[in-house]
């Protein structure tokens, strides 16, 4: 959160030379290799433990439930990109789940309007954060209670149904590889293009990385943050819609646990918590890996209680490994010099 207290060292350097330069396109990043490796390991272990999963049908059944986490993590990635944290993302996805398993089923237009309202709510959160300099964590924590309250008001107990078209949408048979893989790849590609190739994507990344450079280049940090929150809101909508298509029911509490996992996924996926760096493919790989990890634990007859601890430990291990690697790099560089 660059707006809280100290700016990162690179920002201070940049402010010393205020000149309207083009924003840098690429920033150094560890890339999504950690996440890719983790995914391969977890997938191989899954295949060895349960050979039946190594088929189009088996993979489809395993990967389908990973879809909400993939898109929730991409949404969290966008929020972290601009230097914020979303502590309400679990309930936000849950609320869209409730909307799309109740209103959308009976009236497509009402459902669509509610989903647009969710995007606007995210824009409003971004406006509060940017205009009043309130830490995003307080706003999103407060908002999480609003999501929960609205969700409980609409659907007090788990219930509702998915529209027929929505249920079949993710269960289709697609050529060569299972359908969930197409959807995940589309999410990764779209985010990659939006954030790494599109000209405005550079602006979004600049806000989290180098706010001064952004302002010197003549861009408005207000509109940039609103844009990022709108994109995150749209991704939350997709995550909620996919939750409904996977679970075919409305339950505001079912998605609550997503919040912590998205943080773990984003950091293992190769993004930087201080903002500025995004690796959509890494985030998608990490999301699938975390989702499979839960299956692996249940295949090994480990109590479900361990899931949360394993997720917490993987997060700590991933960050610890990064810290060690950077330490070694610095050590060897100092020896060369």
């Amino acid at each position, binding site marked *: 959160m660059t707006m809280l207290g*100290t700016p990162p060292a690179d920002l*201070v350097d940049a402010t010393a030379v205020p000149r309207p330069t083009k924003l840098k396109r690429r920033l150094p990043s560890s890339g999504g290799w950690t996440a890719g490796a983790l995914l391969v390991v977890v997938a191989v272990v899954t295949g060895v433990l349960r050979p039946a999963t190594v088929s189009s049908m088996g993979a489809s059944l395993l990967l389908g439930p990973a879809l909400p986490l993939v898109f929730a993590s991409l949404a969290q990635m966008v929020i972290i990109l601009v230097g914020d*944290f979303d502590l309400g993302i679990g309930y936000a996805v849950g609320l869209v789940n409730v909307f799309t398993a109740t209103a959308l089923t009976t009236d497509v237009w009402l459902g669509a309007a509610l989903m647009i309202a969710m995007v606007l709510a995210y824009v409003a959160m971004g406006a509060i954060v940017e205009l009043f300099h309130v830490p995003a964590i307080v706003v999103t*924590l*407060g908002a999480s209670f*609003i999501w929960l*309250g609205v969700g409980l008001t609409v659907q007090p107990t788990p219930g509702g149904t998915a529209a027929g078209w929505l249920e079949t949408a993710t269960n289709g048979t697609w050529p060569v590889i299972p359908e969930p893989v197409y959807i995940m790849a589309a999410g990764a590609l779209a985010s990659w293009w939006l954030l790494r190739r599109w000209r405005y994507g550079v602006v979004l990344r600049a806000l989290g990385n180098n706010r001064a450079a952004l302002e010197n280049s003549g861009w408005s940090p207000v509109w940039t943050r609103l844009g990022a929150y709108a994109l995150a809101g749209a991704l939350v909508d997709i995550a909620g819609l996919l939750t409904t298509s996977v679970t075919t029911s409305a339950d505001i509490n079912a998605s609550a646990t997503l919040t912590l996992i998205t943080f773990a996924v984003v950091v293992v996926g190769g993004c930087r918590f201080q903002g500025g760096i995004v690796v959509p493919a890494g985030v998608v790989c990490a999301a699938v890996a975390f989702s499979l990890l839960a299956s692996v634990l249940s295949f090994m007859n480990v109590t479900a209680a361990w899931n949360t601890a394993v997720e917490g430990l993987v997060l700590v291990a991933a960050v610890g490994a990064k810290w060690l690697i950077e330490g070694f790099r610095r050590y060897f560089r100092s020896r060369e010099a």
Partner: protein
Amino acid sequence: MKFESVSLQRVNLSKLRWVFPLGASLLLWMVASGISGGVSVNLLLDNLTVACFVALVAVGQMLVVAAGDGSFDLSIPYVMTLAAYVSGKTSGGVNTHLLVAIVVGLVVGMAAGAFNGALVVGPGLPPIVATLATGYIAYTIILLMGNGSQVIVAPGLISFGQHSWHGLTLVVLAAVIVLAGVALLRGQGRYGMYLHALGQSRPAAALANVPVKRVIVLTFVISGLLAAVAGILLSGFAGGAFADMGDTYLIASVAAIVVGGTSVRGGESAIGATVFGATTISLLAAVLELSRAAIGVQDIVQGTVIIAVVVLVMRGQR
């Protein structure tokens, strides 16, 4: 090199800041009395006990927030429950080793805080992520220890937690003593000065030879300790420890700081204002409950109040 965005702010808090949350508390007491028919001192005292649990964790949260750099302690609810569980299990539900059990519970809280601090100053995890990770690890231990049910606590702890003298409970007394200790630590020694310096500008504090890492770790340890005190007292008050007993205290701790008027951007702390913020939050919950509004509506109101108040407070500080 220029440090443009780094400027030292005035440490001087408005000394009268606690007046506003105190006024809000009294107003809510009147509203509650209006709903329930007749001014009742007992209603206020009942809520005072509940507010003490909030106040204890909120003061810990406030110190963490004061360290700046977007620090928050999200492990509080889980540390509360874990301390209550460990202390309950250690005592085995009997009075013989009650004191030992309480000390063990407090040590667990401090250890969790130290783990938080180590993750923050070591690998440089953002505090939010570090404390979430700690919290979820603690939650797993809770699930594994309790087998999904409650943990029995010693009868001595229960009679302490529920003992009341004309509605004034021993919990209130214990909370006042503990918070007075924290106030002494913050106000008298170097710790408070270091903490505020850290929250206002890390680079400036480091240049001024503030032991940044030690202060951060100590702050998380205090927060863990206060969470443990609140958790153990709560298990006595509630007559047992439950897996989800701490759940509502995370949002309440942040809300108490916000309502107390302390900046959530760090660099300042106000214990009195935060305590009255805690009473305001507790009375707000009581009023909502008395109004018999649907549970969903209660959540919406609480969330809206937090966002609205934080916007008002932050606007006033610009």
